[in-house]
């Protein structure tokens, strides 16, 4: 029976992922693909992962090498110490020429911390509400400071409501996001999306979202309760991929990665 179940999961994953591709969580917090949501990981969850980032998902400046944008990757550590707060730390690699040898590689990095807080849990009639900060320090509010790199700096408020039908689950997500610099403020403003978690494969979900300037489709899944994979396509063209190891430090086991 167990063998059948695992086979079923694998088969569903194989079918779903190539067709939907892409996923966010590129900074170790829960959310949709690129837009934040009010869903949270489970209390005690720790995440460690790596994410391949297409250049279309990067800021317009700061990630240029010899005048051109490039694909890169990041890695992150994240934790949900309580059910109402998530913390993470992300390092995004930047391409450069090594000073001594002249070798081209991802020698440089942009590091930032993320905080997500959910003050309002989802109720029968109202959505969950979360607020969050990416890479926000005092310099973010100082427009005169141009020497500090704030490529991923943004704040947001998100509302998410789930609806169930026939064992399936549909999540409606709406968020307002503000970027502090013009590197990527094309993604500022109202953003939103839908996710669908099928009854026959609750470990996974398909997502479609509007990220402020482009559309994004994708899927993610929690496999074997510890391995989280994600894939997404920006404007149906630009692929992003993510792989994450997830453990619950309270020893609990979950089928669904976030709630």
């Amino acid at each position, binding site marked *: 029976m167990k063998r059948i179940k695992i086979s079923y999961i694998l088969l569903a994953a194989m079918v779903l992922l190539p067709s939907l591709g892409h996923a966010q969580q590129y900074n170790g917090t829960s959310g949709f693909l690129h837009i934040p949501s009010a869903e949270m990981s489970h209390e005690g969850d720790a995440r460690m992962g790596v994410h391949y980032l297409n250049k279309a998902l990067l800021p317009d400046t700061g990630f240029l090498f010899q005048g051109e944008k490039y694909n890169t990757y990041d890695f992150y550590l994240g934790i949900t110490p309580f059910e109402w707060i998530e913390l993470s730390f992300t390092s995004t690699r930047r391409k450069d020429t090594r000073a001594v040898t002249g070798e081209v590689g991802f*020698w*440089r990095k942009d590091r930032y911390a993320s905080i997500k807080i959910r003050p309002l849990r989802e109720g029968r009639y109202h959505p969950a509400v979360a607020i969050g900060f990416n890479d926000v320090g005092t310099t973010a509010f100082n427009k005169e400071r141009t020497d500090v790199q704030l490529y991923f700096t943004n704040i947001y408020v998100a509302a998410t409501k789930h609806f169930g039908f026939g064992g399936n689950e549909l999540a409606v997500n709406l968020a307002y996001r503000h970027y502090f610099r013009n590197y990527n403020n094309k993604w500022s403003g109202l953003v939103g999306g839908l996710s669908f978690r099928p009854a026959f494969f609750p470990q996974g979900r398909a997502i479609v979202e509007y990220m402020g300037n482009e559309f994004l489709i994708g899927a993610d899944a929690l496999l074997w309760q510890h391995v989280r994979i994600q894939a997404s396509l920006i404007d149906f063209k630009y692929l992003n991929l993510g792989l994450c190891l997830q453990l619950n430090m309270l020893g609990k086991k979950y089928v669904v990665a976030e709630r």
Partner: protein
Amino acid sequence: MKHNYSIFRRNCLMGIVLAVLLMSGPQRSWGQSEKASIDFFSGFEVGLYDFYFYQKYNVVFNLTPGFKWNMGNHWQLAGQARLTVINQLSNDVRRFYPSMLVLSKELKAGPVYLKGSVGAFSNSRYGFDLKAFLPVTPWLAFEAQAGLTGLLTMAGGWGMSPMGRFTGTVGGDIYLSRWNTQLRGVVGKYVYTDWGFQAEAMRHFNHATVGLYAKWNNIAGQLGQEGVSLTQSLAKGMDGGFKVTIMLPPYKRTHRTVNFRPASHYSLTYLVRGMAQYRDANQLYYTDPEENMRDGWFSRDLLKWGSHTMEPDFIYKGKEETE
């Protein structure tokens, strides 16, 4: 006069530490401390130093073999060495050198728990150290530490200075048992002559503790320098990050007179600001090779407070009492 005061303070602290070491009153002891035993163990250290924009990390990987001779009645002799396997940081460090050798004694004096230590501590310090912990309620406790130390290092050749540096901290702890969450705040004077404060919030999970911390010190904060206001000093001197302590398996163990095992834990600390004035800020030392933020200063079988009220990380076969 200042010199006399210094001598008084030195002698006073040395006297107290020696008194704690020599006291062996009718302490209740059970668990591992009832019977002498010796543990040989090894942990490891991984340092990823993110100093340079043109390089991913400077990697340091050390093995940290050590021993603990539990002499009974909470007397302990412990030592540790450092074996460098990978070192991309400095050419001046020996591949193998002793780093700690400490004799310590824990005891309960009325409501106060005391720990006196003498020897070579971590962070290249040697001397005397006294720790005190006062649980007031199951959720509130106060703590203090005082040390009189000098430099003692064998990392890059023999280096030693007179034992004249006084360090001391005082602080409080709040433990929220429902969430196994601990809040800690201390102010103090530290080994590099700086003074400052530190606040920590940590949650203890199954076999792991994760914490956030913030700290400020007067040197990084340039306190008292011309043109630096108090607000500016607070901003300049503030730093923080996160800490993780993972207790290493196996969690079910057999305890014999002589034991070989992995170190009790692996810990890492991340500091947001990597510059020297922040790395060296608010520094003290460990007096036990396996000291960590999860277990605190005192043995689990002596002090039942905070994380020591949780399920033990290590269960010893054939013993009712566990560590």
